[in-house]
């Protein structure tokens, strides 16, 4: 029973640190010290959860002593646990990066409490086993991220926050409508309970409409093709540390929710969903990367690449074979680390050359050879060049696509990968190879904190690439659990006969 307590900490700890940093409102130095302690503790509890789950299989914990279908449940299976662990790694990297990027005035706008609030919301979304609770975490994430996005209060950030806010709010409204339809049909909000009830129900218009609304709602969150416009309109305005944490985590929460709901509640293998996801994945991959190649601002380009690679993950759901889901899980983990890292590299480029606009910078290979190396690792990994993590992710996905005879998806993915390579090589040529168009008055140094945090995430990418086997095995476990909802249901309800409605857990004192 002690193992289950591990489930609470990845959410409770950042909430506690958010409270603590808010209490230390006037003392910014103290907030920084607490933040360093917080990100390290966060990494520890996240990895601890992963190792516990590896040992025991899926776990669940009930809140407030209520028996499963009534109270809020937290469930961790391999997919949730590996994403929480990856979040822990990225939070450590970005937390260190932000120590230099976030100045006094940002802390006065509430950066540190919002940062921890965002981490709590992301982990809450990964771990929750109640679909209404998922909505609540989405909204907490939205509030925290709006605050973080507009943290410098520049006109561009206010504009970005407006676009980000309106479209994401519309997505969550669709989510509530879908929840109302699901609740009206099934009478429960617990995902494990829904996994038992929904597949038995006839596909009434209400249930089908709920499924499509959920696709739209999660599509907005994930940045899938027709709904991604808020993403490139806002991410490039954020401060660099904020952009890195957004690029790493926020869209992946939408992807995770899609995976969770369409393996547990609905069956992604059903022909209609398969068709929808194939269309979404193909168009997202293609449109995203086409948008990327014309951009001249590094972060705008990276935002479009981010959108394109969301399509790669959705491709796993479109094919929905065990191999495809394995590849998609691997790809999500790889992509969180690499995207956060690339946004940090963009911050480092802007720090040493004064701009992140490709037309205005250059000559960094000569002046910043270390930064060039640190850029190459995530950039090549993103385009899927062999020794790095992206290669294995793409290899698994393409392999799965060929086995399932989805040649078109495989072709689009390889084409998008090629264009990704073209886009990042443009960054390489413009920022690093060509001579600087503007002579800087003073040579700027790469802040050591930047180098360390970028190197940490780069080392994770190289590590995954060279020793891919453990993560591949983990992804295989995750995909097996996704395709067999029984293990998830058993984690929540225990043995089937143990569920007696209305009975409280042993130890209820009232």
């Amino acid at each position: 029973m002690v193992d289950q307590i591990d489930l609470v900490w990845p959410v409770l700890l950042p909430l506690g640190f958010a409270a603590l940093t808010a209490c230390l409102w006037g003392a910014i130095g103290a907030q920084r010290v607490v933040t360093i302690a917080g990100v390290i503790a966060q990494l520890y509890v996240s990895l601890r959860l992963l190792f516990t789950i590896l040992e025991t299989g899926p776990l669940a914990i009930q809140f407030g002593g209520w028996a499963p279908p009534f109270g809020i449940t937290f469930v961790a299976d391999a997919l949730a646990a590996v994403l929480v662990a990856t979040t822990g790694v990225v939070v450590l990297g970005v937390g260190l990066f932000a120590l230099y990027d976030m100045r006094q005035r940002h802390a006065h706008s509430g950066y540190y409490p919002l940062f921890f609030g965002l981490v709590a919301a992301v982990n809450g979304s990964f771990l929750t086993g109640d679909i209404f609770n998922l909505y609540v975490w989405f909204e907490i994430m939205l509030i925290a991220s709006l605050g973080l996005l507009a943290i410098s209060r520049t006109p561009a950030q206010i504009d970005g926050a407006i676009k980000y806010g309106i479209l994401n709010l519309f997505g969550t409204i669709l989510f509530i409508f879908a929840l109302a339809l699901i609740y009206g049909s099934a009478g429960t909000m617990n995902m494990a309970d829904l996994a038992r009830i929904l597949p038995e129900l006839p596909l009434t218009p209400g249930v089908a409409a709920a499924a499509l609304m959920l696709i739209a709602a999660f599509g907005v969150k994930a940045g899938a093709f027709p709904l991604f416009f808020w993403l490139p309109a806002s991410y490039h305005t954020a401060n660099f540390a904020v952009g890195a944490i957004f690029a790493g985590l926020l869209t992946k929460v939408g992807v995770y929710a899609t995976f969770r709901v369409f393996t547990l509640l609905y069956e992604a293998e059903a022909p209609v969903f398969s068709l929808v996801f194939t269309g979404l994945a193909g168009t997202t991959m293609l449109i995203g990367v086409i948008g990327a190649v014309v951009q001249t601002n590094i972060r705008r380009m990276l935002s479009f690449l981010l959108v394109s690679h969301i399509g790669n993950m959705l491709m796993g759901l479109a094919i929905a074979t065990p191999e495809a889901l394995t590849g998609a899980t691997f790809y999500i983990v790889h992509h969180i680390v690499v995207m956060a890292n690339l946004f940090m590299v963009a911050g480092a480029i802007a720090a040493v050359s004064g701009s992140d606009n490709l037309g205005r910078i250059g000559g960094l290979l000569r002046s910043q050879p270390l930064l060039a190396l640190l850029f190459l690792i995530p950039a090549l990994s993103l385009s899927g060049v062999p020794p790095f993590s992206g290669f294995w992710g793409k290899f698994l996905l393409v392999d799965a696509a060929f086995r399932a005879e989805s040649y078109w998806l495989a072709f689009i993915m390889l084409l998008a990968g090629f264009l990704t390579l073209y886009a990042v090589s443009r960054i390489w040529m413009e920022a690093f190879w060509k001579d600087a168009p503007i002579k800087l008055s003073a040579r700027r140094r790469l802040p050591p904190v930047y180098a360390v945090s970028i190197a940490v995430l780069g080392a994770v990418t190289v590590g995954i690439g060279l020793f891919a086997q453990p993560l591949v095995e983990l992804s295989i476990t995750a995909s097996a659990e996704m395709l067999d909802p029984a293990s998830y249901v058993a984690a929540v309800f225990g043995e089937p006969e143990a569920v007696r409605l209305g009975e409280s857990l042993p130890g209820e004192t009232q």
Partner: protein
Amino acid sequence: MSFLYAIAVAAYAGCGLYLMLSRHFMRVILGLALMTNGAILMIFFSGRLGSMMPAIIPFGDTALAFDAANSLPQALVLTAIVIAFALTAFTAVLAVAAYRRFGGLDIARIRAAEDLGSPFKPASRKYPSSKNREKKRHG
């Protein structure tokens, strides 16, 4: 009763959508708030309307009356209202901030994020000096 409820949900969602299509940010916020209310009513509606007895345990009793209303949709609705309230407050603050910076709330004329690093600038502006760029950002 159910019919009345359905009409209310439809009216909320319809008016909300109409307002959201406006170019004025304030109207968009009102539209979002209306549409959220429609969704909230819909959750309440999904819990089935029936009993008019509040889901409160009377003083002295230890259990809820048998024919009391279903308390779960009420809890869900309450949560959604709280969250919608917080988000509406936040977007209102955002609107004030936008009004102070852009001098108006016409979404089509708020283009600061769009212009930042846009690849579709005329060639002469490709390498603007930092001073020009600042001016453009704030202008």
